[in-house]
């Protein structure tokens, strides 16, 4: 009996050897109990070596043609991984298409970009490298630049048991981005951890309004992630220059629809909307209070709300409680170079 058990463990040992050490899930995802599980692709299970490689690449401006732009140039940690600009700027200050989205909790979606045109983080992580108005470069060009870089070679080997290449680049950046979990705002302390003093009275009033049928904010900005990841038209324009989701679906019913953004850290991610057209949260709240432009694709929840000045102020206060100081100061997410 003992012998059989020993063979069993030996077999288990060898079978587990199929997974390289790097593929064994590690405890780098600090997911709180009130957050959902995160789906992670089997081919890119999280590992310390992968996350570290992705982190190094995320902040490496050699990924851009003129070596001036890294992922971290537009996704700045202190701004909850946004850049404070209406529209993102690439190399040579080339104007991008849209406002830079936050990467907070990005690992929870399979809808990348505001139009959902890319469905995996692994593919999305390559896109800025190719895009003319972002990095305008090639992976092959980057590989030439790091040829002979002993540290990178070691890191790719440890992470994916491969030479430096597109696979490791795309997978490791995705792995790093999956660690961008923001779950420690004052709202979280109040709502999920029982700290009733975590919110001010104004924030509490704003919270109640946010979750009430009087505003229906939480119908789309669903906690705990504060998005339902759907595409919605919120009545910004009669004619959208950027067709949003319709760009991908080519359906007129999707014209002017954009992915519902998370509101976590929203006080840090101004300006707002897909085109950065609102500078302050007060303007955003006023837009929803006005009921929008009444576009034919506009979500029916967007209608005049008749909020008082106090109520609008309370809503803005509440949105400020979604700021996660730990997230924007987490040294594990900062530039390691």
């Amino acid at each position, binding site marked *: 009996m003992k*012998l059989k058990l*020993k*063979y069993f463990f*030996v*077999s288990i*040992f*060898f*079978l587990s*050897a*199929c997974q390289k050490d790097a593929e064994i899930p590690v405890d780098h995802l600090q997911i709180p109990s009130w957050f959902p599980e995160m789906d992670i692709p089997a081919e890119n299970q999280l590992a310390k070596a992968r996350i570290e490689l992705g982190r190094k690449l995320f902040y490496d401006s050699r990924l851009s043609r003129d070596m001036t732009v890294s992922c971290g140039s537009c996704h700045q940690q202190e701004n909850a991984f946004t850049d404070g600009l209406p529209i993102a700027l690439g190399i040579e200050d080339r104007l991008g298409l849209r406002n830079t989205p936050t990467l907070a909790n990005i690992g929870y979606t399979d809808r990348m*970009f505001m*139009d959902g*045109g*890319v*469905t*995996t983080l*692994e*593919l999305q992580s*390559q*896109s*800025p490298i*190719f*895009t003319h108005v972002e990095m305008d470069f*090639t*992976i*092959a*060009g980057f*590989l030439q630049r790091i040829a002979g870089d002993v540290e990178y070679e070691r890191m790719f080997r440890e992470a994916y048991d491969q030479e430096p*290449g*597109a*696979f490791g*680049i*795309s*997978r490791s950046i995705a792995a790093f981005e999956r660690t961008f979990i923001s779950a420690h705002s004052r709202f979280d302390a109040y709502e999920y951890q029982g700290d009733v003093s975590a919110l001010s009275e104004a924030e509490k009033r704003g919270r109640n309004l946010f979750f009430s049928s009087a505003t229906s904010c939480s119908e789309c900005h669903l906690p705990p992630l504060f998005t339902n990841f759907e595409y919605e038209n919120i009545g910004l324009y009669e004619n959208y220059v950027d067709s949003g989701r319709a*760009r*991908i679906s080519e359906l007129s019913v999707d014209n002017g629809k954009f992915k519902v953004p998370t509101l976590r850290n929203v006080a840090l991610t101004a300006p707002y909307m897909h085109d950065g057209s609102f500078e302050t949260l007060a303007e955003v709240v006023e837009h929803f209070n006005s009921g929008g432009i009444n576009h034919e694709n506009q979500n029916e929840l967007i209608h005049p709300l008749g909020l008082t000045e106090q109520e609008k102020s309370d809503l803005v206060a509440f949105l400020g409680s979604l700021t996660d100081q730990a997230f924007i100061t987490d040294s594990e997410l900062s530039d390691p170079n």
Partner: protein
Amino acid sequence: MKTKLFISMAIMAGTFAFSGCQKEGCTNSNAINYDEDAKKDDGSCILDTDTTSQISLHFHAKLGTADFAYGTEVTNWEGRKMKFDIAQVYLSGFAFYDDNGAKNMIEDSYVLAKAGTMMYDLGTITNDHYHSFGFSVGVDSVANHSDPASWPSSNALSSNNPDHAFWSWNSGYIFIKMEGLVDTTADMSGTANAAFVYHVGMDMMRNDLMFMNHMEVDEDMMMTVEFDFLELFNGIVVRGNNQDTHTMNNMPAAMAVRDNVPNAVTLE
């Protein structure tokens, strides 16, 4: 005794485990030792040279009747001068068809054909008498929406490829990529000095071409394809709004290029 048995079992378990991980073998269905369970080719394929032949592509790029030359001023259908700095195209799905129309495909035959580079290996095909030969200008929809980082580095679709051309969104690969300079004067009296950029892709832009060409495949052979990049601009006034297309931003220009493809490609 128990110790020896234990070691033996351990070795067997290890062997099983490691071989189970690799799933390597011969992935070429034309090989006599083809392993349908193999996920990764281990170089062990044995081809019966009596029954299969190696097919290569001779890509003969042209600008009208002249051989293609980068940076050389040529005159298009309208009399407008153009110069090419980039001219490349994804070709795929190379296949032979027998007299009954049955398709014999060269597996994973993706080529990123660049003007100036003539020879490309396509793969192997079973020796037979064939009625026609076909391929696509563009990439099949499954591969077109795949992750370019997931292809082996040697594959034309891999983003490790220096000339790799892929869009950020779900549009996929840039099937036809042409950049250069064009004379934008209304009366075409100037020189080619303004940039043109033609990036044509998306599933609907693929052309599936078929050429009648009775042939006996009984030895390694080369298929010579002429590809006239200038013909792709036939009927297009390459100035103003038509100086560039990234497909989505100028669908009519991209569609005009697509529709010109059948006339731009000939099998020698």
